[in-house]
């Protein structure tokens, strides 16, 4: 059952000094699915991502990414994954195109220029390709960040709060990209504190609370944990988001 899982986590523990952040985290992520790790600030979402992407060592427990043990074969794990951290990991001084070429070179790929041009096109950054990243908007920066993570076709992608700090339009763009990724068979683990984000994107949702996964299921299963819905008739008011998009347009 777990042999085919893209990510397999058992009994993961991590403390910073006396502060116990993770106290036995367990979950599996199926290949090609989107898995959302939900939790409030400081719940330990980033710690889980950092451990799985080999940036931090766990105190206890085991984890496998694409079949590789993160503690024993970290180099093989790094070959298969890509991390998009909480803060856009782009080089501000370089242009968008140079950033992509840099990553392609570090992954030892042939023809970095063509790879860069292709991604710029896919992420609608062609016009800004030669500009310094320091002039980019938050949304463009995030798109470039994700584009950099796709170089070398990693089979597992970690997205740590990919839409925090983005405006609603940029957020929807990122969502589109994430869905497209999973459509191509990439496994996505994303962390978020926005409930609607998990609802929109994820095949499975897990809630991390006080160092443990307290629920793990599909949206439907999670909804069944609450008493059945009551039927009430209320006037449907437009939400502020509806108003915003009606005014500024949502042409994608």
């Amino acid at each position: 059952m777990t042999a085919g899982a893209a990510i397999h986590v058992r009994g993961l523990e991590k403390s910073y000094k006396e502060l116990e952040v993770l106290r036995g985290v367990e979950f599996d992520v199926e290949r090609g699915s989107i898995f959302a790790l939900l939790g409030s600030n400081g719940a330990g979402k980033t710690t889980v991502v950092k451990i799985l992407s080999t940036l931090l060592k766990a105190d206890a427990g085991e984890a496998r990414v694409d079949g590789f043990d993160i503690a024993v074969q970290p180099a093989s794990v790094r070959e298969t994954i890509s991390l998009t951290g909480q803060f856009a990991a782009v080089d501000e001084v370089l242009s968008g195109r140079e950033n992509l070429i840099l990553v392609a070179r570090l992954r030892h790929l042939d023809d970095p220029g063509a790879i860069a041009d292709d991604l710029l096109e896919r992420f609608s950054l062609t016009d800004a390709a030669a500009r310094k990243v320091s002039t980019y908007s938050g949304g463009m920066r995030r798109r470039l960040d994700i584009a950099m993570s796709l170089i070398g076709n990693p089979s597992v992608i970690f997205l740590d709060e990919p839409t925090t700090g983005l405006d609603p339009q940029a957020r929807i763009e990122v969502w589109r990209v994430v869905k497209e990724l999973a459509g191509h068979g990439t496994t996505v683990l994303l962390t978020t504190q926005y409930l609607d984000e998990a609802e929109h994107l994820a095949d499975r949702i897990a809630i991390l609370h006080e160092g443990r996964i307290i629920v793990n299921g599909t949206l439907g299963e999670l909804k069944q944990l609450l008493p059945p819905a009551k039927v009430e008739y209320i006037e449907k008011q437009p939400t502020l988001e509806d108003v915003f998009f009606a005014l500024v347009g949502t042409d994608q």
Partner: protein
Amino acid sequence: MTKRFFSDTAVLLGRSLRHITRSPDTIITTTIMPIAMLLLFVYVFGGAIKHGSGSYVTYLLPGILLITIASGIAYTAFRLFTDMQSGIFERFQSMPIARASVLWAHVLTSVVANLISLVVVVLVALLMGFRSGAGVAAWLEVAGILVLFTLMLTWIAVIPGLSAKSTDGVSAFSYPLIFLPFISSAFVPTDTMPGPVRVFAEHQPVTSIVNALRDLFSGQPVGTGIWTALAWCVGILVVAHSFAMVTYRRRIS
């Protein structure tokens, strides 16, 4: 693995050299202070300083070159610190690259940037009347000592670059290094200094390095002093490197 180390280091070196060519002000600000000191000491204090025969600018230049390097490595620490803060460091660490190459790229960038600054300062000194009887071999030895001194200070700079919590903290460490040459033979001969100061001045690394450079510039045979200078450089380099690697491992595990 070693092949990967060299190619990854080359790619990352290209990246940080591009940072320098895009903000040449880091080179200019590095050279301003040493050049200002050169002007101040040669044209204001120099006339009153008894330093022996020859022009004072020629006497002074070796110490000024060391100060140039000490002020230049503050930018190395700063560039490393900026990488750590921006998240690009974590991206590199999560990629299948030789992990040491991330640090080495910064170290080599520091050497290149400092060599450029040193050339600028030497050119200014030449305009001010610095003359050297050194041949090609002696100049190469001078360059070798300066590169070694740069590497030594750079590995010291890596430590705050990796561990600093704020921008202020990251550059503060270089101030003592900039002032160390003042209590040495860099500006005045040590024999007029009072007892304890003189003992310190004569036995700290800067004096032996300055004396070695001075001998090389003047075309004189270097005495055994050069071995003291090299021993200081290599010794501090080894210690700083191992401390830097411990700090690095702590940050990436």
